[in-house]
């Protein structure tokens, strides 16, 4: 880890609420410290150089998905990006594309994800309506539980959406995040929905048949979710639903 070098940050600045404000890139310099992450650097810049700088962090530990932004061209989580990763010490920060811009590096992923959940009904629709919470629970195959958790690790950071060319071209495309969640509920034996039900939601150009398989989602997903595999799986299922 290099110590004592000066980092140069090129940061996108724009306040859409400020009349007359124009998007611009602003350069900041900062002395690097051991173990510095983009989270630490941005906080130092805000505290000492520009108190108006907008960005989002919550857990700062790679768990909550708040801090996704485009770092030197790649969308990723800023909290666990070490500045030492960049040998030239030059770091360009842009907000995630594909989401409403709040200001500077802050985008409204929450609004997007809630709307997506409402549109695709991304919640368990149990086949047992009234479970008696006082009685023994219904068993589930341990392998199924493990597999569900594997697909459920998505943190709704929005990286897959911003790394997706189809999504950038067609706003109504559900993106990898939508399909991953559909796949998760499709797999869940507790969910009453059938393949046909899911077909009505994603068996179209906005869903599995719109995906161009460019794999930006899979390549950039900070949770290493198997997007490609799930999209292929859903395509097979949806194609099967037609017969």
């Amino acid at each position, binding site marked *: 880890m290099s110590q004592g070098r000066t980092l140069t940050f090129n940061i996108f600045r724009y*306040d859409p*609420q*400020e009349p007359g404000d124009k998007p611009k890139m602003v350069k900041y310099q900062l002395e690097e410290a051991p*173990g510095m*992450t983009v989270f630490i650097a941005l906080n130092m810049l*805000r*505290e000492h150089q520009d*108190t*108006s*700088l*907008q960005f*989002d*962090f*919550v*857990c*700062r*530990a*790679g*768990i*909550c*998905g*708040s801090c996704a932004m485009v770092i030197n061209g790649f969308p990723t989580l800023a909290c*666990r990006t*070490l500045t030492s990763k960049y040998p030239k010490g030059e770091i360009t920060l842009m907000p995630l594309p594909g989401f409403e811009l*709040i200001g500077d590096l802050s985008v*409204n*992923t*929450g*609004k997007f*994800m*809630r709307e997506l*959940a409402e549109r695709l009904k*991304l*919640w*368990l*629709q*149990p086949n*047992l309506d009234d*479970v008696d*919470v*006082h*009685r*023994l*629970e*219904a*068993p*589930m*195959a*341990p392998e*199924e*539980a*493990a597999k*569900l*958790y594997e697909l*459920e*690790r998505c*943190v*709704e950071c929005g990286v897959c959406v911003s790394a997706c060319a189809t999504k950038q071209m067609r706003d109504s495309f559900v993106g990898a995040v939508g399909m991953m969640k559909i796949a998760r509920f499709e797999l*869940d034996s*507790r969910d009453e929905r059938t393949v046909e039900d899911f077909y009505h939601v994603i068996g179209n150009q906005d869903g599995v048949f719109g995906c161009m398989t460019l794999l930006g989602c899979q390549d950039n997903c900070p949770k290493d979710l198997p997007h490609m595999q799930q999209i292929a799986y859903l395509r097979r299922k949806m194609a099967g639903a037609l017969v």
Partner: protein
Amino acid sequence: MKLIYTDSLVVGAGLAGLRVAIASKERGLDTVVLSLIPAKRSHSAAAQGGMQASLGNTVKGMGDDEDIHFQDTVKGSDWGCDQDVARMFAHCAPKAVRELTNWGVPWTRVTKGPRQVVVNAEKVTIEEAEEAHGLINARDFGGTKKWRTCYTADGTGHSLLYAVDNKAISLDIPVHERVEALSLIHDGKRCHGVVARCMITGELRAYIAKSTTIATGGYGRIYEVSTNAIICEGIGQALALETGVAKLGNMEAVQFHPTAIVPVGILTTEGCRGDGGLLRDKDGHRFMPDYEPEKKELASRDVVSRRMTEHIRKGKGVDSPYGPHLWLDITLLGRKHVETNLREVKEICESFLGIDPAKDWIPVRPTQHYSMGGIRTDKTGQNPQLKGLFSVGEAACWDMHGFNRLGGNSLAETVVGGMIIGKYVADFCQENTLEINTGLAESFVDKVRNEIDELVEGPGTESPFALRKEMERIMMNYVGIFRNGPELEKAVTELQALLKRAKNLGLKCKKRHANPELVEALRVKRMLKVALTVACGAAARTESRGAHAREDFPQRNDKDWLNRTLSSWPDENALTPELDYEELDVMKMELPPGYRGYGINNAIAHPDTDKREKEITKILSELGDDADRYQRQQALMPFEVPEALMARNERLCDNLDRPASAVPGEESEGEQAL
């Protein structure tokens, strides 16, 4: 002034808040949730290890029940908790786990037959019953006699939060995101809602409601290094405090978690030790058995944290640029276990330390982790001073944790507390009318508006960021794991000086919308008051109980301190909170104060303890041998939960021919510790 009316207003969209909102909405009440961030980003997501519920499905949990969970919780609390609440909680925890299953949580399940586990650094084979196959699994956690912690790998909080938020979305509960509550609207007797600010547009709104539930989590971020998300700043507690009427409970009870990574303070779950991980010093020596031969790494969190600190003070820490640390060794669990059951830990180690925990030791040290204190509530979750003000989860002092919380009991508290208190909140909304006094609402909105005007336009020069840093340093240095009179006095004096300086805050960025500096300024003033309740409470409490460890008063003093600290701030210009105390009545306890099982038994007994023990013996002998454990429990300390939750919990052992392996109190400690 924009007014928004609702029946049930919930501030905070983590597990506890969402669970209360769901309970309101299911009762047909109009419900609105306010949140700083999207609900799924709440700090609940960070809980890794699991939630305690005495399902007793696994062989290591067989024989577990509400009684044992209750006893563990009370002992864990160092007898500081409300035993009624601990009972309500232990009774409802299995119900909450089972309910969550139907909302989508993919709990890790039991696989029948033999499996290898690591217990006390040795590989042991245990055999799960055929009948348990596919039921919800449990892992071991500190301070519990049975393996009771239900989990989904090490992403339990994540999967619970997602399931509960999905449920809330399915019920069409609106979450007003990026909105911060800045003041309660109240008339000194009843709470009528909040004044909140949209953090995007800067708009001030008055939310008027029948009930207002604060579920904003803990106040860990008043400390310099904390495992908490950066939004856990104690603003919910501050809102209650600033009413001048509502009281906070046990604010000095602050838990340090033994194993946060160095330097950034990100948590590695207690599941690491529960699953068999060890603590080692600079010589690679496993030191916990030297201090706690019985429970070793799985002693209560406060105990392990103190032992680690003691060991570091003996010079056994590993030197680093960030000060000394110790090692957490999970290599003995094997790669497969680490990559499946502890994968979040693995990711954290890779991203922040550049190490592979399946082959490298993890640098750890105790770090601020949990706030046992919070807004004081009664058993129904309502604040005794302000009618209509409820609080739940880490924000509250409902008081099932007393002075030390057991691992796995916080995630459980969020959903169990939410389940129970949610029903009481709904009852309150149905029994009360909406009282709308726009003049009152306007006066509170004006007050916040003036505060913002003063910050943006006033002549102040102090930087909110600088004040914040100083507060964090003071709390870390003087109100930490080990405390003493002189340092606590120093903390109080220095915090008071900061609070004075906070009257002179000035902003460089003059925007009224989306202005992070303004957000910081509004918070730091409130956080300083919260910090003072912690420091003053700690300075006044001249004993050691749970996580509150006074070097100058090392004994737990039940004679003088078997009580709850209450802090309030009646004079808004004062520099100190007012403290008073609420006694815990030994004569009403199901489990009178006793030896907690760690170190030497040096507690100063309460005069009623003997009396209560004799009374208990008498009650039990009068009941006779035919009485079952429910009858015995009811005779000692009857408790109530809402009717729908009163039913008994069914367990696997009820359906098996063989008897439950244990009757509470009949096992030896040694056996239980396995």
